């Protein structure tokens, strides 16, 4: 057994990656070889040093920034998907109408070619539409009352053939039928809330996100709307627009104060880059602690950390004052 092989196995033995047979061979070799025993000791010291250094743990601030960036990227991705659909529809319609007016027989081919060209261009630029798509039940055109094209304003998009062979007289495909929906209803209606939740999380335009949050803020919360609450907490923690975060904070204040909301407010106090929001968080937590019989240790710990490390003098002073109040309770 050569030393080079044993040296490799020594590394693997410390990572618990040797087979039983290999481990026995190493153990046997170590009883006879001073050099390899020394080598193993040195390796153990190295592993100890690495363990002492610990793995790189990203700070909460860095994680927060990364999540904000990701949300913006995903919002863009989703809107690009919508844009993709609009572009393909427009080009398809344009090419079809242009050719059909003179050469009706070539209309379909022209539209297909135009789409192919767009596809090539998009592919070359890495523009690939997002592919989240609801799973669908198979419908036949003879199904009564389930015709997805019954409404006149439906737009057909993204047609994909599953079976284009019409020899047996049947074909099968998937397409997306997009129809504008105009809804007016009670803000506590689950369907309305579903749209609002979607808007808070996904809308590219911060003005729309703000209006969605405000709509929720202006209505009393219901016990059943946990999804809305989760969306507000997500917006509070990660929306890149301070106005949206501020209004999400105000909306969450209307909910019963629980662990989720407490943790969200503490998160703001610790990580939000906007000093006004951190001050709001202190003020709200001060009110909450004033009603508690026993001091909440999580709140106390965060206030202490703010006293020590917040860059804003006013926040450090306010945190110290609230801590004093808690002590005297």
């Amino acid at each position, binding site marked *: 057994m050569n030393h080079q092989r044993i040296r490799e196995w020594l590394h*693997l033995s410390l990572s618990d990656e040797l087979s039983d047979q290999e481990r026995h061979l190493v153990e046997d070799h170590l009883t006879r070889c001073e050099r390899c025993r020394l080598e193993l000791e040195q390796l153990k010291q*190295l592993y100890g040093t690495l363990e002492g250094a610990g793995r790189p743990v990203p700070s909460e601030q860095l994680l927060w920034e990364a999540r904000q960036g*990701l949300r913006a990227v995903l919002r863009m991705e989703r809107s690009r998907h919508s844009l993709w659909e609009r572009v393909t529809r427009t080009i398809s319609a344009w090419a079809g109408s242009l050719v059909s007016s003179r050469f009706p027989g070539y209309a379909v081919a022209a539209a297909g070619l135009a789409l192919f060209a767009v596809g090539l261009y998009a592919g070359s630029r890495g523009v690939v539409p*997002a592919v*989240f798509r609801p*799973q669908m039940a198979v419908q036949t055109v003879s199904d009564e009352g389930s015709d997805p094209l019954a409404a006149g304003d439906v737009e057909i998009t993204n047609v994909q053939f599953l079976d284009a062979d019409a020899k047996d007289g049947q074909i099968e495909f998937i397409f997306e039928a997009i129809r504008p929906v105009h809804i007016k209803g009670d803000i506590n209606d689950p369907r309305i809330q579903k749209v609002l939740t979607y808007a808070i999380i996904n809308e590219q335009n911060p003005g729309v996100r703000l209006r969605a949050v405000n709509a929720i803020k202006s209505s009393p919360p219901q016990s059943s709307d946990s999804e809305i609450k989760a969306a507000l907490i997500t917006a509070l923690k990660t929306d890149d627009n301070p106005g949206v975060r501020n209004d999400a904070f105000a909306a969450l204040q209307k909910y019963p104060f629980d662990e989720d909301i407490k943790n969200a407010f503490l998160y703001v106090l610790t990580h939000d880059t906007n000093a006004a929001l951190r001050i709001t968080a202190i003020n709200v937590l001060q009110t909450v602690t004033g009603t508690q019989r026993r001091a909440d240790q999580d709140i106390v710990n965060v206030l202490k950390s703010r006293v020590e490390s917040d860059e804003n003098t006013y926040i450090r002073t306010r945190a110290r004052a609230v801590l004093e109040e808690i002590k005297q309770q």
Partner: protein
Amino acid sequence: MALDDSELIAQAQRGDVMAFEQLVYRYDKRVLSMAMAYVSDPEDAKDLYQEVFLRVYRALPKFEFRSQFSTWLYRIATNVCLTHRARQKQHAHASLDEEFDDENTNPHALSDVLASEATSDEHTLNTEIAMQVQKALNALSPQQRLVFTLRHYEGYKLKDIADMMECAEGTVKKYLFTATERMRERLKDAYQ
């Protein structure tokens, strides 16, 4: 009660964006941590993080539960890391196995991102050692660094790492051996 990964994946595949976010938040700290170990610069780490989860978002509808979600996610993260380094290298016109100059690394980056949990003396010492470890890591080739990170920090078995990197287990062993030897050489002052 919290949903398990499969339920969240199924919901996300049906277009539920909040389910996708929950899934991300379950793993993203480890992905960012891996990215930090790999590139050390916080801005680069955030880029890697975003690229990983954007690819996950695009590919999730095709995820068929043939492997653990975490393994699949790390396979994507591995690819993103290696591609990222390859891209950087293309710009720098340098070879993959070239040693990086210590001056090219950002000595302040690690202290910017390390969570402070120890006392100030311990923290200073740990941070100093951690910085030396990071410098030694930066001197490794991308493949060696990735294997070292996945084995030592993420605790993956070599077989799983080979699966993620789509190469033979023997190759991974070789990377790990060479990486550890080079780390040992660079860190000998810290542990001897």
